[in-house]
């Protein structure tokens, strides 16, 4: 359960809030640049869910972040932008959540194989 990683990411996202790019994107989404940072933080925490589900700090942070998202009137739209830790750029739409990612969504043509008897 790596909450520190998410906090670091949130810090980087906050530092980038003043950039023209983030300001433009936030304006396009009709929200504050802080929303992009908060969504980045939440997105990171949600990916940790399976490791952190019984961690009090994790649950407290998640609840606090959701409250902050409401206060800033941030969009909860999964297509809204987040800060990408790899490119250090704002990106949208958001990558699929772990849960969505772990449900096969390909073309459902199935093949079967079996082995039995002697």
């Amino acid at each position, binding site marked *: 359960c790596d909450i520190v990683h998410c906090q670091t990411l949130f810090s980087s996202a906050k530092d980038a809030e003043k950039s023209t790019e983030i300001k433009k994107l936030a304006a396009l989404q009709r929200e504050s640049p802080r929303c992009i940072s908060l969504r980045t933080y939440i997105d990171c925490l949600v990916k940790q*869910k*399976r490791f952190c589900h019984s961690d009090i700090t994790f649950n407290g942070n998640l609840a606090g972040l959701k409250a902050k998202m409401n206060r800033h009137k941030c969009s909860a739209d999964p297509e809204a932008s987040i800060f990408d830790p790899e490119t250090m750029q704002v990106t949208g739409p958001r990558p699929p959540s*772990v*849960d969505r*990612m*772990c*449900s*096969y969504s*390909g*073309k*459902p*043509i*199935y*093949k*079967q*194989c*079996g*082995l*039995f*008897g*002697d």
Partner: protein
Amino acid sequence: PHLRMFNEEFQTCKVEGAWALVDNKHLTVQVTNDPVINSGDATATSKLTVIIKKNEDCASSQFITYTAQTGHLPGSFSLGQTHYGPERSVEVIEKEPGKSVVIYLRYIDTTIKVQQIGRYFTFAIKMPEGVLNSSEISDKLELCVQGCPINERINYKQYFSEVQRTNKHSKMALSKALKMCRDASVVDFYFDSCVFDLLTTGDENFTAAAYQAWQDLIELNPELRQTQDNRTELPIVPSSAS
């Protein structure tokens, strides 16, 4: 054992020892076939191993292994866990303790069913076509994909003819085997396999195995239609009936 391949072809093979049924970038399924007790050359599946390959997001950061051996069909993976990944993305479900388990891999929508009937296992897998074609090396042997090597295949029609002509090598009378398999309501390749297994081993458990394999096929794909005829019935007339 009898093999139904992904391409819907059927084969009867010797394949004694360890063989891979499926081996792609997501999972490997390997079986070990041993000689059937008191039945000469016949072999059947006595061990089955499923290896689910590393997938940090949806399975585990390590390989997940499931192993079943004669007399031991566990209801959990090798490390004792019954599920891995978010929302039980990988899960083993015990349908009937010691007799039947299902392994489901949600992230590749793949279902594996393993059952023990008598001393031996039946295996069935249902997998999306796109996942099945994900082998990293194209020429490695997967029985479910390429079938058995030619020298491992058994011409059961020839075997039936020999049994009919000489009545040698048979552990059960042909007429009795045919009746038992008809009574078991198995059809098509599964009927042929049932008769073959009774003739080669005399072990009535194989009637149930053929029936179960056929049921697995229908259960995993209810829309599947079998179009083959009862091949055993056509060329062979039991001596008592003639």
